[in-house]
């Protein structure tokens, strides 16, 4: 297929259609608005459904309904809107329904601003809403990955019957890059025999979608089965390392830079500049933030002597890196917020301070 | 076979059927059900017209009504 020049948000929208998603429910908020605008135009052309909801709360509950009826369905928003969706995400996780939720992160807390940010890492990877649950969190770093990860996200969602959260940011959403659209996937709603409204001849009992389990034993059993599913997801990404993480020049690295999303692009440049200056730097870029690639980072901590985590926040993912490193080596942090995207020069300075402290 | 059949396990003893029976032939039974309620009971089935007002008044659909076929 030919390369086309697209905005990240639009590439994600087109990829969703290629993935067989025909239902979008959302509410306007910057900087993700290109995505609903794109789907409002495209979905009717493929007999799909686009509904502008009255709120993010309603939108995620429409997703809950559509997912319970077997649809490949998605919603998108930016940080404050994702906060509003947490109630619904908790229900979707509790009822074990597949869907895609896109967060084009902006600055917070509160209304913050509309600039790119990575300050929703904790919210995304810790569950976000109430209860003992996990969402599978993916972090693309290019317009191409906005498209590729979207196809993968719908597959993961169905495979694990779990919500998948795409953690993007204002830069990735709005920037334009050439992209090769992935091949379309067929989707058959009747493949989900558990879905409400399934009327196949093999249906023997009514279908129920719920997250309420009143008995103590009943709820513990449910939570235990969720926990076991999360272990299956974790094992899947351990076994498929290339899907979970990108490593760059790590083999002989003394200092390993860690960053996700747009930051990882800058870190790659920093690594290359370090190498030119004789500093053995490497890069670890988690593509999946939950489950976090702890094992890989732990192994690297046996070889490398230092870690520097860079985020567009005052330090969220750095906690997961520290947990993975287990105190074996020092973990440094550099972050900018408010919409500031750190330059390679700034980060290089930080590397210098760490590597050559005198 | 009776015209008036109650599933005592469903009866909660609210008394609505007893009050609404036009023939006033329903009353709380002396005995208690496993749920601890005095269920509704038929006192004189010969007077029952099978009007089903009691059954339709029952929030727990505990009563079934039959009519003699002519």
């Amino acid at each position: 297929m030919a390369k086309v020049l697209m905005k990240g948000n639009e590439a994600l929208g087109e990829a969703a259609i290629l993935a067989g998603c025909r239902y979008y429910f959302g509410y306007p908020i910057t900087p993700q608005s290109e995505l609903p605008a794109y789907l409002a135009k495209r979905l009717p052309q493929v007999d799909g459904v686009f509904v502008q909801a009255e709120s993010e709360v309603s939108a995620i509950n429409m997703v809950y309904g559509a997912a319970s009826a077997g649809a490949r369905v998605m919603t998108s928003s930016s940080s404050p809107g994702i906060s509003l969706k947490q109630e619904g995400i908790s229900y979707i996780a509790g009822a074990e329904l597949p869907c895609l939720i896109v967060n084009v992160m902006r600055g917070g807390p509160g209304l913050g601003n509309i600039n790119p940010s990575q300050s929703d890492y904790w919210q995304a990877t810790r569950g976000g809403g109430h209860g003992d649950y996990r969402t599978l969190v993916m972090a693309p770093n290019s317009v191409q990955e906005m498209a590729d990860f979207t196809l993968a996200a719908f597959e993961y969602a169905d495979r694990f019957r779990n919500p998948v959260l795409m953690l993007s940011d204002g830069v990735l959403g709005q920037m334009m890059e050439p992209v090769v659209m992935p091949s379309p996937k067929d989707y058959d709603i009747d493949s989900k025999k558990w879905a409400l409204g399934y009327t196949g001849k093999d249906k023997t009992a009514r279908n129920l979608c719920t997250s309420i389990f009143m008995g103590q034993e009943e709820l513990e059993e449910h939570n235990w089965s969720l926990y076991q599913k999360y272990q299956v997801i974790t094992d899947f990404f351990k076994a498929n390392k290339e899907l979970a993480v990108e490593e760059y020049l790590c083999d002989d690295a003394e200092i390993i830079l860690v960053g996700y999303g747009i930051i990882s692009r800058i870190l790659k440049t920093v690594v290359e500049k370090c190498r030119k200056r004789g500093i053995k730097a490497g890069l670890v870029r988690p593509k999946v933030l939950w489950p976090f690639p702890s094992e890989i980072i732990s192994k690297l901590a046996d070889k490398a002597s230092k870690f520097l985590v860079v985020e567009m926040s005052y330090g969220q993912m750095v906690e997961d890196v520290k947990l993975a490193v287990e105190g074996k080596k020092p973990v440094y942090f550099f972050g900018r917020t408010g919409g500031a995207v750190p330059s390679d020069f700034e980060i290089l300075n930080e590397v210098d301070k760490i590597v050559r402290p005198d | 076979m009776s015209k008036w059949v109650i599933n005592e396990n469903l009866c909660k003893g609210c008394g609505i059927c007893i009050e609404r029976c036009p023939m006033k032939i329903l009353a709380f039974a002396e005995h208690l059900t496993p749920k601890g309620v005095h269920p509704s009971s038929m006192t004189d089935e010969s007077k029952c017209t099978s009007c089903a007002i009691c059954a339709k008044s029952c929030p727990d659909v505990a009563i079934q009504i039959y009519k003699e076929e002519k």
Partner: protein
Amino acid sequence: MKQVFGKTKVLSANPTHYCPGCDHGIVHRLIAETLEELEVADKAIGIAPVGCSVFAYDYFNIDFNQAAHGRAPAVATGIKRTRPDSIVFTYQGDGDLAAIGTAEIIHAANRGENITVVFINNGIYGMTGGQMAPTTLVGMKTQTSPYGRDAATMGSPIRVSEIIATLESPAYVTRVTVNTIANQMKAKKAIKNAFTLQKEKKGFSFVEVVCICPTNWGKKPTDAHKWLAENMLPVFPLGTFKDIHGIEKA
């Protein structure tokens, strides 16, 4: 002997958890009988709310979704848009629909979603132990209005049917009650009208049922029915507020 009244197969055999005399059981039965009579039970999908009827799914032999508090109309929207040939209804109380779910009900109605909403209005929060609802009468004492609802600081009862009827899109908006057999028959007709319209893809239908809550009103069920007629109905008058297809005359 011929059976003249029995339990519809659309209702499950489970005993309900509702209090003695509670109207939920009556309204459940009217819905279940309607689904059976319209021959749509096999493609019906209910949405249970949060509140006393949170376990409504246990009492129907049909597909069910259990929604978050107030969100049932949004969930119904997602289900119906995905499966337009199914028969989708929400079953919601006054806390769920008229307080926390105000936005969801107004906008589902305004989009003209082809769903049916059954709204149970008993003027109080039942499940949580009898707190003030948006529909609580002025002067009525509840756990959270222990001196009686004061209109000056707590507002007056919200008349949801009248509000919904001001919108262009809804096809059918009506208020009924089940406090007597005669009123129950009218309620059944209204519920059947609502589901018939949905079956014919004629748009959003809304049936408000003014109900009793004997436990939290502190009254015997039989007294509660009389209290409803004397106190609730003057504030929530029965009647049809919108019927754009004239189904009541048909």
